């Protein structure tokens, strides 16, 4: 399970980073979303991975750590709000700057002046 889990986190992080480095706002937002999925999964595993462990003392012999779950919940909520804000911002930038490039215009357009 550990191998699969870390593989998933790794692939998500790699794809998120790749998309983040693109020049258009839409891939950047998708990249950020993927990155935050990876981070949430990572946070979820920070108390250690185990099966058959409820986060309630007494229900299982080795209860799971409840704190990461609370933290992930907080992180998800914050990440969600931020993504929503970023989407609105990107739409606004598209309409005000007339381009969906993150700098407002592409490198070639800037070269022309």
């Amino acid at each position, binding site marked *: 399970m550990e191998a699969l889990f870390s593989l998933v986190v790794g692939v998500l992080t790699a794809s998120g980073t790749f998309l983040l480095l693109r020049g258009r706002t839409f891939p950047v937002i998708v990249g*950020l979303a993927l990155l935050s999925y990876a981070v949430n999964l990572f946070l979820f595993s920070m108390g250690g991975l185990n099966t058959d462990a409820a986060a309630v003392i007494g229900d299982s012999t080795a209860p799971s750590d409840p704190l990461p779950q609370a933290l992930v919940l907080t992180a998800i909520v914050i990440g969600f709000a931020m993504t929503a804000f970023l989407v609105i911002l990107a739409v606004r930038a598209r309409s005000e700057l007339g381009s969906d490039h993150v700098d407002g215009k592409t490198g070639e357009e800037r070269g022309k002046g």
Partner: protein
Amino acid sequence: MNPHLLILPILLPLVSALGLLLTGQANLAWQRRVSLLATLALVGLSAWLLWLSDDGQIRFYALGDWPAPFGIVLMLDRLAALMLALTAVLALGCVLFASAGEDSQGSFFHGLFQLQLMGLNGAFLTGDLFNLFVFFEILLLASYALLMHGSDKPRVAAGLHYVVLNLVGSALFLVALGTLYGATGTLNMADMARRLVELPEDRQVLAGAGALLLIVVFSLKAAALPLYFWLPSTYAAAPAPVAALFAIMTKVGLYAILRIESLIFGAGPGAALIQGWLWWMGLATLALAVIGALGARDLRVLAAYLVLASAGVLLASAGLDTPQADAALLYYLVHSTLITGALFLLAELIGIQRGKAGTRLVRARRLRQGTLLGWLFLVAAVAAIGLPPLSGALAKLWLLQAVDATARPWFWSLLLLATLGVLIALSRAGSVLFWASHKGDTSGSRVQPLQLAGVLCLLAGAPLLALFAAPMAEFTLATADQLATPQRVLGALFGEPTALALQTEESP
């Protein structure tokens, strides 16, 4: 003292922000009054907390009365109190300035402003790493919205970069927290310090990685060398009162670095690792910032590079981590925050009276109130450069003294060269703005009393810090002493001699 008072610096802006946001934009005059009153109350409150903290006792407030390592605690020591007071004074200047008309360009200025204050105060007070993340997010969300206030094209482009970069920073912050929690099993700063000392060898590496990741995140906020490129365009594009408030945002990053460096990693091997990086990053940031200041073609961009230069000086001195350097650093921090804030406000006033040229450093119309603005600019420039008799000179002299002999060649030459560079940049800017003007009519509105009050509120810091340098230095020295002995925090919070305390007592 009533223990609940400790949470007031967070609750007061929160309540006033909610009130201001709910009542909407209906009555601007009323909103201004509420915002001003709330900020004034915050100044009084933080001054009182500053006075309280000066007895050297460290105060805690357990939220929901959950005991320390399990619940979230707020912690008030000298450093936190100093930062709270600085934020409140800076905020007062910004609110005064904004109330003269800047706040009517978009909606909800005052509500968002108070939310930002809440985030700042929370970040300074909290003693829990995840709670620090939450307060960072609050202050960032408010800052995104404030940055877009009355938006125009450069603001949207700069805002997009700022938001994306900070979201990536938040993701890294969470990864760092996850790593540290995985290694130590706690998020309480003091508890983490206690457990890091007892950590088995194989987990030390993990904790070290977490520590360095945290430093990366805080360097992004503090604008250290490879991570500062967002700062000049963002600060130059922000509305003046917001840019002035943002002068404290880089200091939040620095505060967080100081806090984790001294409290969490102070006794372990992590500290040496962090300090090496901070020292070189700080020096390189300073060098590049001065080159940027020399090349700036706009007064706002110039002021943004001055923020960056001060961040560089602060980071480098944080890398030294001697009590002397820490004390000098804190004095410089207060000075530089107030002065760069005042410069942003002044730039706006100058820009208004120069017609189309705005703050660009080109020949333009004569200023309507050239004498008044000229004198204000002179005071700000003298303080920012670090010429006597104002606080800048004292701060820089103290910093130069505080560096020990081995680090001197680098620090002295760079800091003195940087001072020369800033002197050239500011005197060139001043002579273009005030002397190289066309003959003929003047235009633009006169400086309003509220705007002047805002600028004076911040600018007064320079002579006052110089006049009361002795009590101020005493306070920062005591703060540095408190930072150097993290075992006092552990003693005060857990009430028992811990392994960390014993270890540091054995090997002074």
